[in-house]
């Protein structure tokens, strides 16, 4: 039998490179393994108490520094996590700059994890990183984020919460 599908590269209207779909346990392990991870938490976590709780839990358990974008900061202050406000578009710009020393001054990041963003917005912002940096991005949103390196698929809010719990277990 000849193999006719081995080297298939799918070009769609969005281009040639799309994120790999990832399961929660794998995502959790990857986050734990990262040397310089950054957790980028968007304002949509404020719309769902459960989501906010898990965002904080992830940051705490994996000891992730948090870039609080939008106005997510208002839900993250005094939660015992290391969170700083930054605009996500500006952040993505700095992440593409090898000379940026990060939110803490200790150097550029190697892996970013995104949660709580508008699908279309984070996807657009991540396309800059995909094209102009080597940073790995893991989207743990409830929508498939095409421009991440890896991403959850399109899931319901309930499944999303379950997935985050599973991810937390694997941190």
């Amino acid at each position, binding site marked *: 039998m000849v193999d006719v599908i081995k080297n298939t590269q799918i070009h769609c209207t969005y281009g040639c490179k799309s994120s790999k779909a990832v399961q929660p346990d794998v995502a959790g392990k990857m986050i734990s393994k990262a040397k310089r991870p950054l957790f980028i938490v968007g304002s949509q976590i404020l719309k769902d108490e459960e989501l906010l709780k898990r965002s904080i839990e992830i940051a705490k358990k994996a000891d992730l520094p948090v870039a609080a974008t939008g106005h997510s900061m208002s839900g993250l202050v005094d939660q015992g996590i290391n969170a700083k406000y930054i*605009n996500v578009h500006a952040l993505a*710009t700095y992440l593409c*700059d090898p000379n940026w020393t990060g939110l803490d001054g200790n150097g550029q990041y190697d892996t970013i994890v995104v949660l709580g963003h508008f699908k279309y917005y984070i996807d657009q912002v991540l396309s800059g990183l995909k094209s102009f940096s080597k940073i790995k991005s893991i989207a743990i949103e409830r929508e498939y984020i095409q421009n991440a390196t890896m991403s959850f698929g399109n899931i319901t809010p309930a499944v999303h919460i379950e997935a985050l719990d599973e991810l937390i277990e694997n941190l």
Partner: protein
Amino acid sequence: MSELTTGKFSMAISDLENVQLTINNIVGAIEKEADEIDVEMGPTVKPGVSSLRDWDHNILDRYNPVYTPMCDQCCYCTFGPCDLSGNKEGACGINLEGHNAREFMLRVITGAAAHSGHGRHLLHHLIGLYGKDHPLDVGATNIIAPNVQLVTGVSPKTLGDLDSVLSYVEEQITQLLAAVHVGQEGAAIDFESKALHGGMIDHVGMEISDIAQISCLDFPKSDEEAPLADIGMGCLDSSKPTLIVIGHNVAAVTDIIDYMEDKGLNDKIELGGLCCTALDMTRYKTGDRTLPRAKVVGTLAKELKTIRSGIPDVIIVDEQCIRADVLKEASKLMIPVITTNDKVMYGLKDRSNDSIEDILEDLTTGKEKGALMFDYEKLGELAPRLTMMMSEIRKQKGIKRLPTDEELKELADSCVHCLKCEVACPNSLPISEAMTALSEGDLSNFELLHDKCIACGRCEYACPKDIDIVNVIEKSSQRVISEEVGKVRVGRGPISDPEIREEGVNLVLGTTPGIVALVGCSNYPDGTKDLFTIADEMLRRSYIVVVSGCSAMDLGMYKGEDGMTLYEKYPSRFKSGGLLNTGSCVSNAHITGAVIKVASIFAQKNISGNYEEIADYTLNRVGAVGVAWGAYSQKAASIGTGCSRLGIPVILGPHGSKYRRALIAKPYEEEKWKVYDARNGSEMQIPAAPDYLLTTAETVEEMMPMLAKSCIRPSDNNMGRMIKLTHYIELSQKYLGIMPEDWHKFVRTETDLPLAKREKLLKILEKEHGWEIDWKRKKILSGPAMKSDVSAQPTNLKRLCKEA
């Protein structure tokens, strides 16, 4: 000797002596040059594509282009498609950065072409009616056309003067478009410079369009007390025959309004508009502050909903921001559509030369779904008559509009909750959940969605059960829609010279904390109320809030606790705490115009052909920021890019990221935050604000402190800096719950600190930042990165410096 001006002229030459014939344009040009010989001209009169390149590279060095491509391939030519992912080069040699810069430029000049094409159409129409010598009059100002003058050096006095300036605009757009061709520009940075050129040109084109219509159509002229117009889907009296106009170009509509007036039809027909035509309809013949004849239904986001409501009996479209499926949607409800502009014709037959009776016959019998009509006088009679007739016919036929209550329930029950609609929805609205609630008889979820839904209809295509989801939303929200009634201030046109004279000093010193311009379209991330929230907050803080276009409309949809819209509450004067609607999309030119006038009137700068110096002045001294919260169009990209070149930062809503290019600076690159002091050419450190020229914000809450920070300028005096810093800190605390991380970087001396918090802040400066404080005198001894010197003259331009 008798003098002949422009126009047609004929005579018989016989038995004449000493006849001297000169052709008008030559004489005109010479006379004009003589007139203007005393006018000081800057170095870039009618700049070509490369004339302002140094300035562009100057600002781009600090404000770096940031590309976020939608697609990582290029399919411009037959070499392709080329995989440019990871910034690879394609077959022609262009890389992803270059290609994206090119695409952005194309976006900008598409917008500029839309405005100037509109201007050309309008100007042609108005010159035909009023003649080339018709004087320009836009109210109390000596600078009739600040953008035109700044760019071209021309101070236009007549419609004819605009004609030649518009030719310059068209030439520039053609030159820019040529660079898009494969095998031309290769460097991203020079595509950027071209994009900035296109943005600048756009403001010239917009200004021409608006001052022409203001001068001819009896629009308010720099009027602080322009009347209020009704706005909202709920303001239409659907029991009357209803004529709806959609688009941006009022030329076609004026004849309709005149005909209705002449025939006493104003009370018999509802005349409503969607998008900027609506705004310009309310400006028509309201120069004397009489109430507008037309009502504003709303923005682009209301187009499909208005059609689907079945309320319109006839729809007229002109150009720009019109849904491509108006004819298809309207035909389903037996609403004839008349197209009036060669940019939008929908395949309809040209009936310009046919008799009105014939056209009425074809449209009322349904033989034709619509008509193309270039004869506006004919349109003036046709449209109202057709509306009256269609109203009767449609009533008799019992045209079915939205689903009945029973059908609504059935539709909700048929939903299989596959979530495909939510994936298709540009705002990921929770439709499935709302369907469940609706099945149980609860309309409230859909009522909430209604305002967030931009009625694009993508959900309907995604639905495997063919549910007309937009109709479901609309039907479920009838109660909310009937309450959608507001007020919008009729567009006042430019800002007058006396207003600038009074306010200029406050703006440059910072004691008026800034100008916040709410402009652009209606593609909001979270509904229309955001605009009200922004304006309400900034007006309370005494910013000048200037609005235009769709933003001006949506702002009028909400009332405060006092039951008043912001238009009713705040004066329409260009002063601290004033709320001004300049008008439609092309009226955006008056916002940049006001900034140019600050440099001209307050700082006594020559503006003619002096773009670079004025842009430099704006960037360093005028605290203005644009907000295009729902920007969706290419026009919004060109308006914003024109602001970028002029040194005005612009924030877009999250959907604005889909323009795929931002200009963002890096506050941590300290060497980028130095300018010259023009007094002696020495370098001075400036604060990192604004730290972008074009960027996006995620939510309104995030944007609030960004706005305050964006208005900080090196020229602020201590009082000004204190006021701006107070707002920055307060807004950050209010909306993010924290002190801004970088607040101390804007402090030059203790008098920059907010008075009420001074002692507390001094303590923080000492403790957390290691500043030295003299506690007896409550003075800062050391710490600040920059000095406070109100007589410093910050500039990015070495050539403007006196040598030390």
